[in-house]
């Protein structure tokens, strides 16, 4: 796996961005926490944190892009970036795994148990008499009141099509890049992030629908919890991915990336595929089955 060139591996010396990032995180975390504890000032501290972090990200990436354009990165550096991105995405997968795990646990364990299955006969008899396990459910306590479950067809199906299409367009864009067709590259990249943003918009419509007409909320028992947490975190990732695609789009317009070296492009494409795969899991297990 080791690739070696005789050139030196580029080691930047000194960077103030990480410490700026840490300061941003401090503001952000302290801000959110005190806001959650009911302090209004917390909100502003949080926003300050967000601003510092955006500043840090922009600056840090600008530095990296500058170094990349200056030709300081050899192939080995490129590999480091790729592997780094790969394992970062893996860690994201595991983050989602926790929530999928919660979903499976609820559906296959806790809900049936509350209904009296396995070694929980008395759980049902003594505490939740009359509760029958079903899915979806907001639990024996009917937390959040009557609600309608989100049907799998309609909006979610359209969203699935959107996201799958965007995965195809980003792949075409990649092939165009490899083939040196820059116009085609730009067009398909644009199509990808437009599809992405449309997805996010539709998701917003779906949420409004759920909250206003279906009484389906984050507070609707375990179904609402898993539904909104999974689709919510996914939606956040789509948003981030679409923003990254947009940035890459402008970099393409500026003539960045060559056939050999286009780590940033590929990283974003990988990320996009990851978001897509998670959606498929979501569609199957949250909406459909």
């Amino acid at each position, binding site marked *: 796996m080791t690739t070696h060139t005789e050139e030196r591996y580029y080691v930047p010396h000194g960077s103030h961005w990480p410490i700026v990032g840490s300061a941003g995180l401090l503001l952000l975390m302290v801000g959110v926490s005190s806001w959650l504890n009911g302090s209004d000032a917390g909100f502003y501290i949080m926003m300050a944190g967000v601003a510092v972090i955006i500043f840090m990200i922009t600056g840090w990436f600008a530095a990296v892009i500058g170094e990349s354009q200056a030709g300081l990165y050899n192939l080995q550096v490129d590999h480091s970036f790729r592997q780094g991105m790969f394992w970062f995405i893996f860690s994201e997968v595991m983050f989602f795994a926790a929530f999928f795990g919660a979903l499976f646990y609820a559906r296959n364990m806790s809900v049936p*148990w*509350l209904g009296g299955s396995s*070694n929980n006969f*008395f*759980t049902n*008899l003594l*505490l*939740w008499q009359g509760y029958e396990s079903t899915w979806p459910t907001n639990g024996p306590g009917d937390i959040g009141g009557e609600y309608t479950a989100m049907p799998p067809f309609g909006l979610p199906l359209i969203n699935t099509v959107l996201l799958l299409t965007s995965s195809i367009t980003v792949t075409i864009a990649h092939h165009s890049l490899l083939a040196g067709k820059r116009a085609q590259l730009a067009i398909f990249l644009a199509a990808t992030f437009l599809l992405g943003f449309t997805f996010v918009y539709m998701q917003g419509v779906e949420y409004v629908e759920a909250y206003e007409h279906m009484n389906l909320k984050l507070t609707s028992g375990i179904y609402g919890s898993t539904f909104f947490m999974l689709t919510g975190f996914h939606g956040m990732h789509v948003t981030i991915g679409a923003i990254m695609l947009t940035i890459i789009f402008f970099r393409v317009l500026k003539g960045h990336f060559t056939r050999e070296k286009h780590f940033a492009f590929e990283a974003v494409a990988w990320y996009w595929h990851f978001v897509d795969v998670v959606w498929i899991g979501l569609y199957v297990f949250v909406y459909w089955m």
Partner: protein
Amino acid sequence: MIRKSFLSLLACCFAGTANADWALNMPRGITDLSVETYNIHMMVFWWCVAIGIVVFGVMIVSLFRHRKSQGVKPATFSHSTTAEVIWTIIPVVILMLIAIPVAETMIKLEDSRDPDLSIVVTAYQWKWHYKYQDEGIDFYSSLARPSLEARRKESGIDPNAVDNYLREVDRPVVVPRDAKVRLLLTSNDVVHSWYVPELAIKKDTIPGIVNEAWFKAKEVGTYRGQCAELCGKDHGYMPIVVEVVEPDAFRAWVDARKEGAARVARNQ
């Protein structure tokens, strides 16, 4: 130090000490399953001792004989597939020898069918509530007053002067000897755990869920335990006392309790 402690541990195994000062070993308990549990504990322990003697023995020999100061030349071997296969397989075999009886006991532990007596145990921060399902008795049980007073910081009371400091309750659970008692455990707030060593029972009480445990006490007596799952500031102060009595005495106790309850109701 280790060796000394080990020796004292060995000594105690033969003595079979119960709950006393400087107690070294697990109590045998007063149910068949507590004795089985104790035997499992000792069996695994002895296997560990045996393996320890071999491993540490070899190592100690090596530490004394294979020193540079003894003028030895280091050998050059650096692997031996045979040796490695052997010391992979032997532990596997030992583990199987351990696992089988252990699994048998576990199956028995889970079998709480056909009880003679069912008690619903509900945990609160920080006391217990017991409800005898068929007898129509229920009561709270919490830390007895003498301990309650002595436990406060700067109370000025010497804990050693209090009988059963922190392990006495106002109203103990009373159960008949030789009856299969099933506990149905749940909680009203956070997770607690109902733990009495002599009965070999430790079962978490979980809000919204009912867990089951059972025991059949063989010996009359008073057995003490306490909450074993962190449940907030007074976690250390929710003891459990189980009194095992002869069946007749149990009947009498039930009747007296019922009568008491009826009197209270009339007076109101």
